[in-house]
């Protein structure tokens, strides 16, 4: 759902006014500070308890809360770690509505203002061992179930065993997937390497499958936690619909991950992925893809966070006429809280497939600011300048307003 016009100063001003009007309407909504997302409502907590520097990016408490099936780590009167469950009074209490409005301007294309999507996002617990999450989106005039999952959790808070299943986000280090600060995702999660007829794998896709995990958590000084999450998952390898070649058949992928969290916000993780997709056409050959990656972030001092990631890939086919393609990608990002509720981010991204597909090489900076004037409203402005292959540098500007209730 997009309105496109010629890129004139007047039209941009009109659209900025629309977003400003929306911001004012949101500001006037009679919501209390705790009354925005579903979890903040349930736990009577501020967004900053689980998000840093701003929502939706999670801090270590938020990552642990999510990993524990939406149960909040807490301490009992003896100082022992417990998982606090706050059952909601009704299912609707566990869901939040999110409206995403964007003003987008790219070199060579008309400026557009669009209602990018409206999402209904929710999660919660159903008893001591079961939790669930679901995400329904209305985008481009259509409804889609973007994700659904169930999770079983057993054991003591300091050592839990989990089984997560459904259409799930496979990444434990979710700082650049759903929980990214700006609009642009890091290339190492978002770029595909096409091999033969296979459009290629990208780590950020939601996948159907099941993941088994072991989570070790202990309390440290100053209310900090040290957690280590280990997981192995088996997935369908592609989006639920497969791709345009019907390559979702006979695809069984394996992913192993480890993520260590310490302090309020430091993380270090690694992943290994191996996938195979069988071409069901006349040729009958297999495409395989492998990835391994390292990623993490370190808060230099409160409000200054450095994030980095590296991923290497090897994509191949049993068809001798198709050459193996190695690839590597990395990013480095700096987040700086300027004042409470206002943060800036700067990232350099590079995605580098082998020379034979040099046209797919991408590199460039992303610069942006994120502002949360009230709990119900998140605004971002972001510039991305990417050089693709030997071509000219693209310049994209996105101003986004997210209304949350």
């Amino acid at each position, binding site marked *: *759902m*997009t*309105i*496109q016009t010629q890129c004139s100063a007047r039209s941009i001003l009109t659209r900025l006014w629309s977003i400003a009007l929306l911001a004012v*309407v949101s500001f006037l*909504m*009679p*919501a*209390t*500070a*705790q*009354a925005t997302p579903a979890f903040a*409502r*349930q*736990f*009577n*907590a*501020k967004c*900053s*308890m*689980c998000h840093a520097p701003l929502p939706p990016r999670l*801090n*270590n*408490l938020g990552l*642990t809360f999510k990993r524990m099936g939406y149960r909040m*780590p*807490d*301490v009992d009167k003896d*100082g022992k*770690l417990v998982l606090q469950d*706050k059952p909601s*009074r*009704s299912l*609707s*209490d566990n869901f939040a*509505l999110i*409206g995403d409005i964007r003003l987008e301007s790219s070199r060579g294309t008309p400026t557009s203002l*669009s*209602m990018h999507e*409206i999402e209904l996002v929710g999660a919660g617990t159903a008893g001591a061992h079961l939790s669930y999450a679901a995400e329904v989106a*209305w985008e*481009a*005039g259509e409804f889609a179930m973007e994700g659904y999952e169930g999770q079983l959790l057993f054991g003591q808070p300091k050592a839990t065993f989990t089984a997560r299943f459904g259409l799930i986000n496979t990444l434990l280090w979710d700082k650049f997937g759903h929980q990214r600060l700006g609009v642009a995702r890091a290339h190492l999660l978002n770029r595909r390497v096409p091999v033969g007829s296979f459009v290629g794998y990208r780590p950020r896709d939601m996948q159907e499958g099941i993941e088994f995990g072991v989570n070790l958590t202990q*309390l440290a*000084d*100053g*209310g*900090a*936690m040290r957690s280590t999450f280990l997981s192995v998952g088996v997935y369908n390898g592609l989006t639920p619909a497969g791709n345009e070649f019907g390559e979702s058949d006979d695809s069984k992928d394996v992913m192993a991950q480890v993520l260590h969290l310490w*302090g*309020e916000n430091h993380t270090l993780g690694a992943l290994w992925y191996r996938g195979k997709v069988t071409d069901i056409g006349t040729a009958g050959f297999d495409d395989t893809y492998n990835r391994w990656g390292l990623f993490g972030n370190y808060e230099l001092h*409160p409000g200054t966070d450095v994030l980095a990631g590296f991923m290497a890939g090897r994509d191949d086919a049993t068809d001798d006429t198709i050459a193996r393609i190695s690839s590597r990608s990395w990013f480095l990002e700096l987040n700086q809280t300027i004042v409470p509720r206002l943060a800036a981010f700067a990232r350099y991204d590079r995605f580098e497939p082998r020379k034979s597909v040099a046209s797919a090489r991408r590199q460039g900076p992303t610069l942006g600011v994120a502002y949360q004037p009230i709990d119900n409203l998140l605004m971002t402005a972001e510039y991305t300048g990417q050089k693709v292959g030997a071509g000219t540098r693209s310049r994209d500007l996105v101003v986004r307003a997210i*209304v949350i*209730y």
Partner: protein
Amino acid sequence: MNSTLSLLMGAPMLVVILAAGLGARTQETLDPRIAAYDKGPATIDVAKYPADMKARYKLFATRCSKCHTIARAINCEFVLEDEWERYVKRMMRKPGSGISASDGKEIYEFLAFDSKTRKKALYEKKLKQIK
């Protein structure tokens, strides 16, 4: 779908959904006493406080507003040293609070000083009660 029509339909739909949501949601009930603290002043005038206390106020305002309103700590009825010691230690143990032992000591020092200054009457009243 016609894009203009779609936007015209989509924007009111968002407003209606949000408005309906406002009525439908229930928030976890807060103790009325705590709700009243939350609605009180959210800053302390530290202009006349010693320099070290001004620095401690900054730490207190940063650390103690991460999970709940800072107004809750400012307006609550804890004033005695024992009360603050117990409360700060409890917050320090909360996972993710990020209040280290040294931060906790600084915050405690500030709260004890502030109570004796800003809530002097209540401090003396409570002190008499326990003597």
